[in-house]
């Protein structure tokens, strides 16, 4: 990326322009953190929520502009805990700037970018780079997660203390599990001294081997090598023993099957500091969607059975699964237009996260509060971020949502540089209309 491109990408918003106070009026205010669900208004001043409630109406605040929400929902901006971004190293797939525009269009106001970059984010200088590039080019808040082992190799511990001081919000081994239980123990133990959250990918490599999709009937019919759910569950169970040993805060980045959900439930019941996430893909799609080798449905963990998907939905609904992520993973045609077994894993998702998740709400499977909690308040809580709530004094990271608006995903119109969406041509109900980051509108629908 050249400096010129960077300047060009900065066009969307002029951060220096002073803003008048803005009142969002005639809105349904939904705050999962406090349980608030009421009609009223919300006043944005100097980037924070200055006031909210019934008394904020059109013209009630002197000198403020007002935006009539027409009874639509105002909620905390979404916080996506798992975004793979190409910067640095794979800018042809995605930059922080393009990912942030996709995020803004999806109502996402904070993204956590994963350290699977080139070079890997395992050094203070890289954390600093991400934060500076985000400041200069991104529309939304960007928080780097740093590698917990050097170069993500799973061999030596990374500088967790220094990285955390530099601004890494959590530590992860990206798309691989740390195979060595001893190293994982050391990492958990050491991270715990700094109160750092460890986010782990769950996959026993020796069991996955050359598997490319969920193991079972569909894989057998398609003649594709399977990945058993045990590859995920074994790693999760091991990790939970290590959490027990170290007392560290542990988050399973994505679970994908009923068996893992049961392990998580048991761990929580024992009072362990264990949480987990699920991708919106695993809540809305299953292995049958692969159909005739559609590589846009190839991901890790793989899409599982319908029973597993239902378990995931139930897990979110009951709060056993804490957060929903997009697992946004931009891949170009060079990685996806290949035979299924050879194609890259991953799907973009920032722009469709909210709408896809709303399917669960419209189906009556998950309450609106729990759904929004899983994409805003809960991630904020886990990461220690200030956003994710509608409260006086909180940063005005907000999304105005039309819960009912029908729309169709047209891949070529996605803001992400890569168009590998499994929701190609999908029809959704509900989407972000306006997105505010620190009080500034960064996205308007239409």
């Amino acid at each position, binding site marked *: 990326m050249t400096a010129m491109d960077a300047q060009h990408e900065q066009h969307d918003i002029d951060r220096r322009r002073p803003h008048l106070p803005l009142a969002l009026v005639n809105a349904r205010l939904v705050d999962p953190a406090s349980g608030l669900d009421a009609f009223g208004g919300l006043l944005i001043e100097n980037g924070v929520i200055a006031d909210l409630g019934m008394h904020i109406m059109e013209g009630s605040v002197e000198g403020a502009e007002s935006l009539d929400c027409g009874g639509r929902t105002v909620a905390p901006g979404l916080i996506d805990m798992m975004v793979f971004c190409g910067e640095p190293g794979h800018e042809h797939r995605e930059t922080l700037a393009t990912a942030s525009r996709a995020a803004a269009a999806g109502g996402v106001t904070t993204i956590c970018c994963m350290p699977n970059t080139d070079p890997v984010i395992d050094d203070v200088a890289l954390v600093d780079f991400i934060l500076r590039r985000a400041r200069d080019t991104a529309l939304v808040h960007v928080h780097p997660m740093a590698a917990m082992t*050097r170069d993500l190799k799973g*061999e*030596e*511990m*990374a*500088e*967790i*203390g*220094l990285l955390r001081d530099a601004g890494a919000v959590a530590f992860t081994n990206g798309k691989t599990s740390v195979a060595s239980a*001893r*190293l994982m123990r*050391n*990492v958990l*133990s*050491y991270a*715990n*001294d700094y109160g750092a959250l460890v986010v782990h990918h769950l996959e026993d490599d020796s069991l996955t081997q050359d598997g490319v999709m969920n193991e079972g009937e569909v894989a057998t019919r398609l003649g594709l090598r399977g990945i058993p759910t045990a590859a995920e569950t074994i790693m999760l169970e091991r990790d939970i023993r290590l959490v027990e040993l*170290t007392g560290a805060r542990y988050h399973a980045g994505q679970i994908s099957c009923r068996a893992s959900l049961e392990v998580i439930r048991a761990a929580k019941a024992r009072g362990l500091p264990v949480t987990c996430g699920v991708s919106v893909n695993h809540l809305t799609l299953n292995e049958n969607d692969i159909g005739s080798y559609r590589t846009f449905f190839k991901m890790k963990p793989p899409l599982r059975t319908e029973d597993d998907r239902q378990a995931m939905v139930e897990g979110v609904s009951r709060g056993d699964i804490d957060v929903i992520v997009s697992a946004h993973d931009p891949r170009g045609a060079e990685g996806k237009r290949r035979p299924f077994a050879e194609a890259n894993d991953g799907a973009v998702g920032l722009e469709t996260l909210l709408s896809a998740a709303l399917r669960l709400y419209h189906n009556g499977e998950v309450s609106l509060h729990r759904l929004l909690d899983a994409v805003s308040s809960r991630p904020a809580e886990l990461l220690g971020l200030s956003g994710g709530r509608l409260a006086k004094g909180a940063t005005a990271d907000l999304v105005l949502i039309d819960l009912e608006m029908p729309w169709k995903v047209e891949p070529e119109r996605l803001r992400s540089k890569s168009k590998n969406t499994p929701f190609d041509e999908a029809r959704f109900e509900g989407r972000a209309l306006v997105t505010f980051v620190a009080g500034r509108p960064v996205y308007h629908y239409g």
Partner: protein
Amino acid sequence: MPAQTGLIQCPLMSIAAEALPAPFPHRHLLGIEGLSSSEITALLDLSEEAAKRGRQVDKKRDDLRGRTLINLFFEASTRTQSSFELAGKRLGADVMNMSIPTSSIKKGETLIDTAVTLNAMRPDLLVVRHHAAGAVELLSQKVDCSVINAGDGSHEHPTQALLDALTIRRHKNRIEGLIVAICGDILHSRVARSNILLLNALGARVRVVAPSTLLGAAVDRLGVEVYTSMHEGLKDADIVMMLRLQRERMVSSLIPSQREYFHFYGLDYDKLARAKPDALIMHPGPMNRGVEIDSNVADDARSVIREQVEMGVAVRIAVLQALAQHLPNQ
């Protein structure tokens, strides 16, 4: 351990009792564990005298005239071995140094065989350092002479703890009630274990400060306050005792890097400011400047690191004197 025939049972007992306020009841010195506080205090008092003599022109005594002291070191050492050698010589003993690098043990001889062989040479005192915890005690069961533990694995290093206590006492005139922060690689440190035992026996408040990966399981059960933050652990400390960090700890991923370790656990002026203004800075040596201790801090006026070396000789003289009481006379 029952005392063998020695000075305390001979007609000269009254003379000996003058030199030794409390007769030392042990034949070996295998660890601080098992020593009473009065025995520790007696050894420190005796060391104090040895320290005085060490600053005189004539440093010699003949407590060990005709005796043989063997330094048996299975692990490399500079200061411990040389100070035992000097201590033995100042008491008139014949001193032999045997350094047995691990490679030559590979010839097949077991530790016990080595002990039996050495025993046949009829030494009176055996000073042993070994890389395995418990090895010195095992050896002591197979020989007829007095055995002094000069460090066994990550277990104990009693003379180091005694010399640390002596150094502290000379500056603070007491041990009881002092806050002592032992910082660094607690997990692998025999110095830490011996110090914890000794300082607790004498009524100090002992803290350990280290990343969790270098603390060891259930370390709080040793009677210490546990901290993972230097800023908290050093607060109001009277004594700041730094431990050596070994590079192997990074390779085995107990800590990420030297620079991170120094940033969070290295003793610099910023962290030292949390301790009492007259806190003593100690280090058992050899130091890694810039890893566990800032170079300027190591040379600060409050640093007693060089004095620790001097007291090392005095303490080892005292220990040899105390054990000499139990050497058979016929």
